[in-house]
């Protein structure tokens, strides 16, 4: 849950605290990224390697709410508008330590050859520091896991950082050698106090206004502005467009801290997930409750992106290759849309109407996602991409099956990347329903699924491969759910 919302903007104008020092955001235009702002302030430790959230050279630490206290969360500074951080606390590599007074993370990275050209290094240090300070990082898991260190370090924490020089081994060794923060570590102590709340913000350079409303009704009212408005949540999509395509908006409305969009609760009928919760927060709060989403999260972008990206933003783009949609289709989710006339609930299967088009009206926003319970017991999320960490799907297939005595009682399949919109694979579902969950059934369903959609050729994959992947997805799912050899 978000901390208290403070409605008063500081008399000195919007400020952000960086490495313990308050800095004025002044008339910062809404398109200026947090990274460019920091670098403009002389804090050049954070680097730009890509300006699109892929390399992590810009990673910084941000204080985020965590229960009654706070957590240090790492994210890509190149994506969010700097003004979105009004009232917030940020720590950069410069703030962690200095030559002669290295932070333990910096010490390990330096000593073990974790830096060569050093350009990626400040970003790695911040991502690693976030994991170092993770409150529930627990040493010594029973089963050896190549992606988890003996100190409980989860390598996913570094999934959004690229290094072209080292080959990663020394960085992994540094991460796995970290101990735990000492009692007197100021950043560790900081975690016991609440994170800064949302601060009502209105900043403009004349042509580009940034507004952070503090209530849902205010946000909905703002959407009615005569000027062209644009919602922004984690800005992981928006930031890329702003940086690379020079997307600009006369009015940017931030919804990522609206308390109404940040709730997660379960009723007897459904689990409701606020549209402005970050994927990391959802992952943490669900704690494995929805297996299919758990299967998805590890394959969705990187930890850095998941620390900012929201479900509302993923569905808000209407992208045919977003990963949330296939999973939510398989879960038969509903979306709660809020507009001037209040809420309406729509099945996700009806939400997408065309390429990047949805039934959402311009004056509506996505408030939450409802996932009906009980949940299907047998699920899988197959993402076909070149790289395992942090890549966009060529094809995504989400399965949710109810099996009873080896027979498929109900099947739901969601697809991404094979048509202008995400799809429910109704025909393939029908080919499974009521049949025994055998290779024969899978082969029949594979044939049907392989004929679904209208995949295209692009630089990610050929149409032929996409089609083949639809086909083999069912076979792989069947093999995985019935085979003894789970390791295969």
């Amino acid at each position, binding site marked *: 849950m978000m901390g208290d919302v403070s409605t008063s903007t500081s008399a000195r104008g919007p400020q952000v605290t960086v490495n313990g020092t308050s800095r004025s955001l002044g008339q910062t235009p809404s398109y200026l990224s947090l990274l460019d702002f920091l*670098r*403009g302030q*002389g*804090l*050049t*430790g954070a*680097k730009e*390697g*890509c300006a*699109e959230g892929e390399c992590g050279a810009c990673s910084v630490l941000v204080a985020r709410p965590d229960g009654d206290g706070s957590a240090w969360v790492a994210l890509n500074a190149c994506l969010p508008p700097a003004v979105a951080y009004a009232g917030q606390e940020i720590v950069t*590599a*410069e703030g*962690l330590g200095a*030559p*002669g007074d*290295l932070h333990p993370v*910096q*010490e390990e*990275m*330096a000593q073990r*050859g*974790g*830096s*060569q*050209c*050093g*350009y990626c*290094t*400040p970003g790695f*240090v911040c991502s690693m520091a976030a994991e170092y300070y993770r409150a529930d990082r627990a040493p010594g898991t029973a089963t050896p896991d*190549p992606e988890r260190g003996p100190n409980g370090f989860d*390598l996913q924490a*570094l*999934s959004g*950082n*690229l290094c*072209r*020089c*080292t*080959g*990663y081994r*020394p960085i*992994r060794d540094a991460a796995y050698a970290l101990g735990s923060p000492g009692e007197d570590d100021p950043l560790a102590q900081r975690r016991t106090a609440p994170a800064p709340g949302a601060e009502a913000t209105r900043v403009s350079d004349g042509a580009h206004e940034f507004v952070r409303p503090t209530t849902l009704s205010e946000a909905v009212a703002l959407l009615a502005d005569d000027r062209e408005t644009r919602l922004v949540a984690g800005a992981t999509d928006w930031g*890329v467009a702003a940086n*690379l395509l*020079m997307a600009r908006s006369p009015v940017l409305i931030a919804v990522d801290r609206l308390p109404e969009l940040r709730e997660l609760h379960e009723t007897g009928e459904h689990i409701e997930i606020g549209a402005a919760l970050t994927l990391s927060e959802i992952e943490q709060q669900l704690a494995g409750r929805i297996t299919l989403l758990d299967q998805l999260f590890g394959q969705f972008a990187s930890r850095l992106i998941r620390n900012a990206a929201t479900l509302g933003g993923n569905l808000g783009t209407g992208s045919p290759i977003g990963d949330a949609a296939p999973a939510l289709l398989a879960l038969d989710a509903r979306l709660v849309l809020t507009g001037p006339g209040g809420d309406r609930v729509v099945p996700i299967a009806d939400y997408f109407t065309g390429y990047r088009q949805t039934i959402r009206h311009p004056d509506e926003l996505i408030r939450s996602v409802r996932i009906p319970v009980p949940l299907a017991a047998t699920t899988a999320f197959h993402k*076909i991409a*070149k*790289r*395992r*960490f942090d890549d*966009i799907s060529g094809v995504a297939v989400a399965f949710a099956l109810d099996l009873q005595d080896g027979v498929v009682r109900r099947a739901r399949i969601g697809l991404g990347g094979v048509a202008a919109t995400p799809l429910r694979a109704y025909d393939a579902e029908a080919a499974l329903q009521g049949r025994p969950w055998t290779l024969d059934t899978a082969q029949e369903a594979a044939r049907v699924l392989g004929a679904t959609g209208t995949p295209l050729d*692009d*630089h990610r994959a050929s149409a032929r491969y996409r089609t*083949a992947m639809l086909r083999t997805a069912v*076979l*792989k799912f069947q*093999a995985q759910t019935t085979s003894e*050899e789970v390791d*295969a």
Partner: protein
Amino acid sequence: MSSLSERPRNPDVGQAIPHESADLHVTGRALYTDDLTGRTKDVLHAWPVQSPHAHARITRIDTTPATRVDGVVRVLTADDVPGVNDAGVKHDEPLFPSEAMFHGHAVVWVLGETLEAARLGAAAVEVDYEVLPSILTTAEAIAAESFQGGQPRMERGDVDAALASAAHVFHGEFECKGQEHFYLETHAALAQVDENGQVFVQSSTQHPSETQEIVAHVLGLRSHEVTVQCLRMGGGFGGKEMQPHGLAAVAALGAVITGRPVRLRLNRTLDMSMTGKRHGFHTQWRVGFDADGGLVALDATLTSDAGWSLDLSEPVLARAVCHVDNAYWIPHVRVNGRIAKTHKTSQTAFRGFGGPQGMLVIEDILGRCAPLLGRDPADLRRQNFYGPGQSTPYGQEVTQWDRLPRAWDQLLRTADIANRRQEIDRFNATHPDTRRGLALTPVKFGISFNLTAFNQGGALVLVYKDGSVLINHGGTEMGQGLHTKMLQVAATALGIPRASVRLAPTRTDKVPNTSATAASSGADLNGGAVKDACEQIKGRLAQVAAQHFGVHAADVRFDGGTVSAIGSKADPIPWAQLTERAYFQRVQLSATGYYRTEGLHWDSTVMRGTPFKYFAHGVAAAEVEVDGFTGAYRTRRVDIVHDVGDSLSPLVDLGQIEGGFVQGAGWMTLEELVWDESDGPNRGKLTTQAASTYKLPSFSEMPEVFNVALLPHAHEEGAVYGSKAVGEPPLMLAFCVREALRQAAAAFGAPGTSIDLPLPATPEAVFWAVEDARAGHADGAVERGDRAERHVPDQPGPDAHAPHPRSEELASEPAKG
């Protein structure tokens, strides 16, 4: 032992120490060129107008709409150039072109008060184009005979006769794609002019002297009017050897014209769409084996895809031709090379400098032919290694022939290859949808610039009265640890603690006429020069000390910061006391050092000589697992034994080996340059021009188990303190990843299945290979013997000119990396 290679007692070289800037790196304090922008007042920002066509004549440029944009200060065009409008050394790279030669070609540059203003200004510039026909692929270039530069031929023995009598003859084609450097720091330059008209350019460049020369000739100045400094680079990999020059020149031109500092930094999209990459190569080949599997002949024609201008393509091609043998003795060899001119970025140096593309030819051949010969690929490779007394096709004796077999056998033992093979066979027999493969490949890589002139290095060493030492040398630091090694060399040569030595940033006004920091030669050349300078000073100090101790200068010892004399009862004196004493005795405490590599010669017209001082060696074994449903794979384990001579700095060398390997593995598997080759409106556009579409290896591609050992007993007589170059060779160790994937895919088929695996071997490529293997029609796309004579690789006719020696002198030379 040579005096160059001999180490004194307690040498600082050989100690495993972190990078000299590690503390600055980890705390974000290390400065890169663009970090200076915010520290400089009144900087203007530059942004290009890029061609939206692969090939077009520019018929009109109207810059006035841009100048109406708020904050736009100036648009730079060809008319502004006071000197030569060219950014290359071959005069084929107009800086402000009248004809756009590739999609993304910068036509003019806009200077703005802010980056936003410059970008908006660039969008407002109006350019009219007359679209011209374009050539994008090597195949199109071959068909259109669109070639540029020289066409070298390397020949030994009688290939045709040997193929006619060989027991097995195969022929085929092989295509490898290029690779984007993806240094994490994109190109950047910051130019200023001082009160005296001296132009000062800070540039992220591997070749400050050449950046200086190009800036000077664009501005119509002489070299002494331009100073170039490179603090450090956030990676270079060859991509900053030639490519920074034009960008630095644009910044410098802007600074001269406006009188204000100009910053030019490419963002990732600009960098990827404008700057050169590793050359893709297309090869036609015929190969002959004897009945036992011994290589008898190779006939190959290599065509590199050079893009729109020559850049370093001639020396890259020459190195490729010189490396087709990799580690193997091939009695009869004929290799032709040619350079395709295509409408793409001008491809350039990239770690390995053509060597990898050449070596891949033979490794691909062995990988495809081994199953057809009924042979285990590793045994086939081992069998064909060079033996005593044998020479490369260009006539250089392979004197250290024994190192590869030694490394190979060590790897077989330490990586437990035999047992793991059996385990893999068991695994494959019991897993219908998953297969594993384990492959070993060798690397033999020639070290030196072929053009003899480039094999020189310079240094300037300053000793202050208080005993502190400042060294300057001609090499640049891009993460490879050169500065770390140079500190160690200086500390070793002077016999003082490393803490007494500091290193100044690389500047052209400290050491002139330097070679590029390239060809893995940085430590060899600059190390030799630093050592020379230190020894001159030490020699003078020894005289001073000799007087003090009353001994002969030859009996003075420098060790650990104290100076003593053999056979003297007097107490040793601290180094700092000696330097002060020397000052008062009016003894010079600075020296310029110089080093030239001896014993090299090369005739590029016939491709013969001894171009390399020595070879670096390595062997690697990779085990992969392939998912038959998707073609996705992971690297389970990698083992490496590599020859770095006697390491100057083991932690640095280990980092080079691991990093090179992973970078090579990226090229083998993931990294895919996709150009729009359609006839649509985006023809010629690089569609993977961002980190989101061009995927580098991340943590998920790192081998789960990664063991690297340095080859023991590997002293190198011909290099500083017995070491060997390490920058490039490890990249090629990664060939084993692709070979392992080939074998794993083949394991889905019957024994003898041969796989023609595209490069890069993406999951999609592997999936189709698996499908072919399963369907039983995987023949490696290799055709057998009898029809082979009908498939002679293209033989460039007599009119194809041999490499032009003069043009090579101007540009560079055949082995520059």
